[in-house]
């Protein structure tokens, strides 16, 4: 089989990276193993759990269902880019205060999904939050505290 490598140039959290990758390298593995940004988690590798959710050109996507080579020339955001140095984002802060995580495995994916959701839905009701969360599995919390955190963040972001 071919082990052809492809030169790619990807912007991640505003920083440009030039690398070469094998075609079969998943974007999730590229982010974790090549860029050493291990905040992006990998659960199922078939699109179901949402732990690997990143933003691809500004929209949440499963990084386990893309190849790194497809990110050439594109813009990626990961959980590492959410905080402003030591200052947590409103949603991160609310997750902390409302106990929106236990083991934390699902948390990066949930933060990436719900930050985007809040940006386009500033005043969601609980049902809308639950629906938006449906693509991210959490095995610990039972979701209630995550829902609380998202609603709290929404309230604060509305000011």
């Amino acid at each position, binding site marked *: 089989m071919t082990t052809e490598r492809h030169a790619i140039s990807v912007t991640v959290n505003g920083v440009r990276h030039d690398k070469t990758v094998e075609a079969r390298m998943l974007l999730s593995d590229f982010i974790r193993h090549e860029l050493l940004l291990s905040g992006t988690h990998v659960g199922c590798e078939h699109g179901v759990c949402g732990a690997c959710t990143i933003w691809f050109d500004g929209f949440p996507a*499963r990084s386990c269902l893309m190849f790194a080579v*497809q990110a050439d020339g594109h813009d990626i955001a990961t959980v590492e880019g959410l905080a402003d140095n030591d200052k947590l984002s409103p949603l991160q802060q609310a997750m902390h205060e409302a106990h929106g995580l236990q083991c934390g495995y699902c948390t990066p994916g949930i933060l990436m999904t719900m930050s985007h959701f809040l940006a386009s839905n500033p005043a969601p009701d609980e049902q809308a939050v639950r629906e938006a969360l449906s693509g991210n599995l959490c095995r610990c919390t039972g979701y209630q505290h995550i829902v609380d955190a998202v609603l709290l963040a929404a309230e604060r972001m509305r000011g």
Partner: protein
Amino acid sequence: MKPASFKYILARTLDDALAAKTEHGDEARFLAGGQSLVPTMNFRLAQPAILIDINPIAALSGVRDGASIRIGALTRYRMLEADPLIAARQPILREALPHIAHPQIRNRGTLGGNLAHADPASEMPAIMLALGARMRLQSAANDRWVDANDFFVSAMETALRPDEMLTEIDIPDSPPGTGTCFMEVARRQGDFAQAGVAAIVTLGADGKCGGVRLAFCGVAERPFHADAAAQSLIGGDGSDDSFRQAAELAMAALNPPGSTHASAGYQRHLAGVLARRALTTAHARATTEVRRDH
């Protein structure tokens, strides 16, 4: 798990993509949204030798207006959800899209990839069948249109030949006085449907049902149109009884596969209940349409 090695071809134009597919045939697969293909590669259920990435081909993406609506195969679900033309002219698509997976999947997944994948549980094939859509299949040498009814052959099997790409979907406008409805039952928001139904009712000038379409997903090896059930309603006034009878005809025609989470009998039951409800709603919407036109 991780995908097996493959050769990656980035196609920048339709001609490039079609030329590569002609050269490599069944060895190669097109990579659209990757939301069905990549999971199967990660599990090594699929090990294509070559992937032809069609994502850069802008000409394959977008919704075009005309006597009918034309949707480029690479148009992502997200774009369809936000498209004003789709909302106005084909509201059944708008109604069904949120049932497909989750926003993260819909940000990548494409209509063409969905239809080419031909998952029998998927919503869009049943809707295309109900709407009488046509698929444009192009190869380097050929360019043909295939009706939805002939396009879907069996589970994960379509009329696509090894050198062909689905490039465009053509959806005819419904006549005035048409109401539509899509409904499904899934275990969780975003899961594949245990049963789903697309109902389309067109009222004639006399207020009777002039045209009815009733297509199911999730209950057969391909999207299924309940001919006898739809036919039974023609010329009727859309009474509760007529919808109940139509639902029974549809149930009798179905032979659902059953699954871990839904027995064949339960799927048939769901199909009947959904058919009755969707027909009722489509009929009510058609009635509102007629009032608005007068």
